[in-house]
C-alpha cells in the first residue's frame, strides 16, 4: 500500500487558512444576536438560508469540477479549521481532543466511545462519527459558482453517527430528508429559491454536553487546554445549551418517524405491485406534508411551489446570507504544482455584498 496517505500530510496552504478565517467571520456575521440560536427549539442553532440557484447539469463540467475540487481540498480544510484559534476551540467542544487529532491529520473527526463485546464476538469499536457536508448542495448553481460552493463558509462538519435504527445522532440525515431533498427533487430547471439548512456553527451539534454558565464553559475549555472563546461565541454556545436543556443534542423523536415510515407502509400486506405503489405514493405525500410545515410559500417541494397563501407551522429563522457571492478568499484548486505551497498569499478580490439580513 505504498500510495496510502496515513502519514503526516503537508500543512494547509495559506489560501485555505485565509478562507477558514473568512468562514469564521461569516459565521459571526450570520447571527449577531445569540437569541436566534434558540428561535426554533426543534432545530437549535439552525437557520434557513434563502439562496437563488438552479440545478446544475449533472453531467456538465461545472458539477464534475465542483466534486473533484472538493475532494482535493477536504483534508486541507480539516487541517486549516483546527489551526484557526476559534476553529480549534470549537472543534475541541464539538469533537473532542481525539477528533482534533484526526483533523490535524486531514481525517474526518470521530471519537471512540466503547469497545466492549461479548466473549463470543470479536472486539469492535463504537464511535461517534462526523462528516463534512456542503450547506448549499454541490448540485445547485449559484452566483459565486464553485468558489462559493467549495468554500469553508459553505461547509459544516455534522454528526452522522448511526446505530442500527437509531438516527437520533444523525442531524444531517434529518435536515436532508426533511428540508433539502424535497426541494431539489424534481426541481424545475430554472433559477428557484432554495432554503438551505445553515447551522450557526462550523460543527453540529456544537457541544457534547451542556453548560449552564460562561464559567462552566471556560472551566471545561481550560481542562481541554484551550483558551476561552470570544464573548460572542460563548453566548452562542450557551444559547445552544439552554435550548437543548443543557443536555447533549438529539434529533427530536417525532422526526424519527420519517425514517421508519417505509417499514410501516411496506408491510407484507402491501407487497402486491398496486398496493406497493400506493404505499410509496402515500409516503412521498407524508414527507412533502412534513417538509411544508417548515418551508415558506415560495419554496418548491417535489417540483411544486407551495404558494403565497402557505404559512409554515414551524418558524425557523430565515436569512439571505449572500454567502453565494464570490468569497473574499476563494480556495484555489489544488494542483500538483501548488499542493505544497503554504506561504504564498492569493490576492483577495473584492467581497461582493457581505451583508446579512434576517427574518424570523
Amino acid at each position, binding site marked *: *500500500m505504498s*500510495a*496510502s*496517505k*496515513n502519514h503526516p500530510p503537508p500543512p494547509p496552504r495559506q489560501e485555505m487558512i485565509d478562507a477558514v478565517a473568512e468562514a469564521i467571520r461569516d459565521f459571526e456575521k450570520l447571527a449577531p444576536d445569540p437569541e436566534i440560536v434558540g428561535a426554533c427549539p426543534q432545530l437549535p442553532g439552525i437557520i434557513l438560508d434563502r439562496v437563488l440557484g438552479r440545478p446544475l447539469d*449533472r453531467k456538465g463540467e461545472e458539477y464534475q469540477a465542483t466534486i473533484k475540487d*472538493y475532494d482535493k481540498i477536504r*483534508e486541507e480544510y480539516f487541517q486549516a479549521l483546527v489551526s484557526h484559534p476559534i476553529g480549534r476551540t470549537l472543534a475541541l467542544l464539538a469533537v*473532542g*481532543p*481525539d477528533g482534533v*487529532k*484526526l483533523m490535524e491529520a486531514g*481525517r*474526518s473527526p*470521530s*471519537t*471512540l*466511545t*466503547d*469497545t466492549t463485546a461479548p466473549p463470543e*464476538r*470479536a*472486539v*469492535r*469499536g463504537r*464511535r461517534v*462519527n462526523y*462528516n*463534512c*457536508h*456542503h450547506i448549499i448542495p*454541490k*448540485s445547485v448553481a449559484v452566483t459565486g459558482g464553485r468558489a462559493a460552493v467549495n468554500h469553508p463558509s459553505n461547509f459544516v462538519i455534522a454528526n*452522522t*453517527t*448511526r*446505530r*442500527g*435504527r*437509531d*438516527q437520533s445522532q444523525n442531524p444531517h*440525515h434529518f435536515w436532508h*430528508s426533511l428540508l433539502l431533498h424535497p426541494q*431539489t*427533487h424534481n426541481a424545475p430547471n430554472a433559477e428557484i429559491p432554495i432554503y438551505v439548512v445553515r447551522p450557526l456553527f462550523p460543527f453540529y451539534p456544537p457541544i457534547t454536553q451542556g453548560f449552564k454558565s460562561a464559567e462552566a464553559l471556560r472551566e471545561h475549555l481550560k481542562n481541554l487546554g484551550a483558551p476561552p472563546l470570544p464573548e460572542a461565541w460563548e453566548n452562542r454556545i450557551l444559547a445552544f445549551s439552554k435550548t437543548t436543556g443543557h443536555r447533549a443534542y438529539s434529533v427530536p423523536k417525532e422526526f424519527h418517524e420519517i*425514517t*421508519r*415510515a*417505509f*417499514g410501516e407502509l*411496506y408491510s*407484507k400486506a402491501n407487497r402486491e405491485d398496486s398496493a*406497493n405503489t400506493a404505499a*410509496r*405514493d402515500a*409516503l*412521498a405525500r407524508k*414527507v412533502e406534508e412534513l417538509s411544508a410545515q417548515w418551508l415558506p410559500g415560495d419554496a418548491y417541494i*417535489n417540483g411544486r411551489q407551495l404558494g403565497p397563501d402557505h404559512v409554515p407551522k414551524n418558524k425557523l429563522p430565515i436569512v439571505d446570507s449572500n454567502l453565494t457571492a464570490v468569497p473574499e478568499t476563494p480556495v484555489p484548486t489544488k494542483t500538483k504544482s501548488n499542493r505544497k505551497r503554504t506561504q504564498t498569499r492569493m490576492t483577495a478580490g473584492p467581497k461582493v455584498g457581505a451583508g446579512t439580513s434576517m427574518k424570523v
Partner: protein
Amino acid sequence: MHLKTELLRELSDLFVGDLRASQYYHQLSPEDRTTLENRLAGDAARGSRPLVPGALPEDIERTEQAAHDELGIDLPTELLDIFAEVDGFSENGVSLYGTDQDLPDEQTYGPTIVAENLSLWSAMPETAEKYLFIGDSDLWYFAFDLESKQFVVLSRSTLEPVHSFGSAAEMINDMLMQALRINSEEGNASPPVPNKTVNG
C-alpha cells in the same frame, strides 16, 4: 475481482493505532487495557482483523432474512460473502453498512444495511426498491441497482448514478481506498454509467 485483504489489514492497523492513541484507551484501568489488548491479540490469532472483523454466520443469516421480510429483496450473494470478511466500517466519512445484529440500538456498532435502507427509502421514496444502499460518504451513495444488478455509485446530492463497478468487491475496494485516502485517480477504471435517472 476479489476484496483486497491488504486494504482491510491497513484499515485494521489504522483503527488499532487510533484506539491506542485515544482518550478512551488512556482512561481505561491498567487491567481493562490489558484485557482489551489480550482480546485483540486473540482475535488476530483466530484470523480476524482486529477491530475490523467479519460478521458471524448467524448475523449474516439474520440480515438476509430481515432484508427479505422488511425490504422485500434478496441480498446479493456477493455482498453476503463480503460481510463474512468485513462487517461494515466507518472511516474518514466513508461508511460500509454492516449486518443487522440482534443488539439494542445503543449497542450497535454503526450503520446497518436493513436499517439504513428503511431510513433512506423512507426519506427518498423514489429510491425504494430501485437501489439497495450499501454504504455512503459525504459525496456518494454506494448502491446495488436492483434492476440492472450492477453495483453503482450515486451522487449524494442528485441521486444520479455516476459510476458502475463490475463486482461488489471492486466497489468495496474503492470505498476502502477512499476511507484510507489512497489516490485512485490513475487506477480507477470504473466505466461511466449510461444515461439513467431516478424517476420520482
